[in-house]
């Protein structure tokens, strides 16, 4: 069709550019915020996803690793192994502590020390970019972001809980929002935490993950019969619990900002459509006089709205993707995940924006009196 909508819109290039820019900004704001959300989710569940554990045995009442604390006596692994379907059991001992970087004086930072079984490697780092994967006593594998921020490398030392540790490896994808993981032997971890008789979780690998839920119940019952109150979560339950926590904080912190982005978008598109409509109001009266119906008029506004919305989205998405690529090179802790869900959510938001923004101009056009065409 002869797109009067686009012709009218492109007639004023400056205004179009400003509004597309505004929508691009709104898109970037939303995509970045949603990307932060997905990024946090990915970072914080990466350990659970990468670790060979189908079940997590923790103290009764456990929910996630942030809000609930789990402490169990050592030595339950033999008991858990008795439950049918269990293949392997490993200890997880980990806690956030202050670490001092010896090289940099007065430089303390929270790290989450994880002590793992170095013979099986279960619970340890999964991807190493430098050095070795398995530390020995007195050694530590630190995260890439931590190493970059502190300017440390293989051979440097850090101190945690009074224990001096030499960096022997640098791992990837082991940074979670505010702290990074540091991997040590479980013996060193016990020493750092000063807790020789306790650990935090047992990680259970089962023969057939299909029966994981049933095995979880059996482990709970068996431990209960021994007087130990434990809760057993499947990997997915544990991941979901973390997601729940992230969702909660997202809805209070990030969502309002996303909504601001949304309203910026609606306002920018709305104002552009409104001024573009007012400017040509006499011409819309002509169209109505000729015989254009409501549908035709609505389509004009909608087409303009979608043109601005989609152009803005494309620019905003391209800039966001570029930023998501480039920013981690300078600030690796800033992880924005622009995945397909993010793109879809943002796109749907832009479409919704365009529709909302059309409402007032459409009302305006509905009220145009075609009889005015005869007036000079």
């Amino acid at each position: 069709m002869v797109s009067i909508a686009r012709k009218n819109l492109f007639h004023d290039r400056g205004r179009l550019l400003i509004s597309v820019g505004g929508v691009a900004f709104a898109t970037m704001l939303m995509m970045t915020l949603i990307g932060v959300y997905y990024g946090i989710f990915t970072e914080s569940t990466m350990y659970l996803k990468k670790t060979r554990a189908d079940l997590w045995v923790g103290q009764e009442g456990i929910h996630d690793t942030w809000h609930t604390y789990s402490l169990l006596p050592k030595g339950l692994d033999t008991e858990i192994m008795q439950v049918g379907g269990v293949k392997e059991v490993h200890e997880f001992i980990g806690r956030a502590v202050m670490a001092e970087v010896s090289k940099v004086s007065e430089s303390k930072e929270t790290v989450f020390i994880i002590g793992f079984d170095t013979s099986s490697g279960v619970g340890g780092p999964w991807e190493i970019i430098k050095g070795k994967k398995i530390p020995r006593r007195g050694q530590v594998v630190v995260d890439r972001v931590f190493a970059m921020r502190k300017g440390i490398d293989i051979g440097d030392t850090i101190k945690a809980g009074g224990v001096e540790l030499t960096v022997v490896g640098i791992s990837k994808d082991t940074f979670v929002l505010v702290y990074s993981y540091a991997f040590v032997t479980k013996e060193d971890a016990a020493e750092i935490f000063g807790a020789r008789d306790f650990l935090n979780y047992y990680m259970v690998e089962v023969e057939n993950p299909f029966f994981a839920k049933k095995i979880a119940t059996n482990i709970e019952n068996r431990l209960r019969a021994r007087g130990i109150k434990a809760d057993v979560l499947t990997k997915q339950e544990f991941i979901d619990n973390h997601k729940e926590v992230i969702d909660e904080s997202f809805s209070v912190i990030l969502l309002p900002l996303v909504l601001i982005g949304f309203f910026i978008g609606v306002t920018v598109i709305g104002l552009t459509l409104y001024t573009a409509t007012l400017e040509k109001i006499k011409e819309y009266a002509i169209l109505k006089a000729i015989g254009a119906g409501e549908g035709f008029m609505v389509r004009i506004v909608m087409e303009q709205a979608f043109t601005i919305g989609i152009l803005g989205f494309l620019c905003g998405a391209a800039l966001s993707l570029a930023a998501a690529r480039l920013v981690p090179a300078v600030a690796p802790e800033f992880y924005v995940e622009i995945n397909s869900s993010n793109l879809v959510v943002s796109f749907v938001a832009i479409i919704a924006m365009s529709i909302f923004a059309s409402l007032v101009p459409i009302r305006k056009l509905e009220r145009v009196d075609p009889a005015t065409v005869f007036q000079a």
Partner: protein
Amino acid sequence: MLIEAKGVTKVYGSGRTAVRAVNGVSFSIDRGELVLLMGPSGSGKTTLLTLISGLLKPTSGEIYIDGVEITELSQKELARLRLEKIGFIFQHFNLLSALTALENVMMPLIIKGVSKEEARTRAEELLAAFGLAGRMHHLPEDLSGGEQQRVAVARAVVTEPEIIIADEPTANLDSKKGREVMELIRERVGQGKSAIIASHDPRVKSFADRVLYMEDGMLKAPEEYQ
């Protein structure tokens, strides 16, 4: 009879500020007739055209277009009627400023739902016949007044409407251009197609089959009109 008005009255406003712009007007126009509506400024010509276009509801009276009483129709039905049966020409040309001459002429066809290709072909042929072949891709602002009005005539007739309604189509043109525009309209009238043209331009008279004289909202016999 293509157009028939019976005792049509239009009062603008109410109370002490009420203006009786059209006052008990009755007339009819046959198919194939070119009727000129003459009268001084403020006599109610434009209001009468607006009424028979269905763009304004009369305060009282009946208007028939092709046998259909239009004062009872809904906005939607009136829009349909205008699209199907009426072509408009205005004093100020009223082309859509962001569209080229060709696109302006295509517009009524597009609104009617004619395919873009067909609309283009028909509009091109018409513009060529109107001597505007070389000006088709220009925006209105790049056309002279005479060219703009010829484009406007093309837009009015491209759907082959039965009625052309024109309000002062020559008022903004010099006499040569005015005559050209009137010739184009004249050529289109006949074979069942009619036109009603409001004008106080005496030169238009020679193109008319019949003249209606209007004064103070009422039609006068020619001999009463000075």
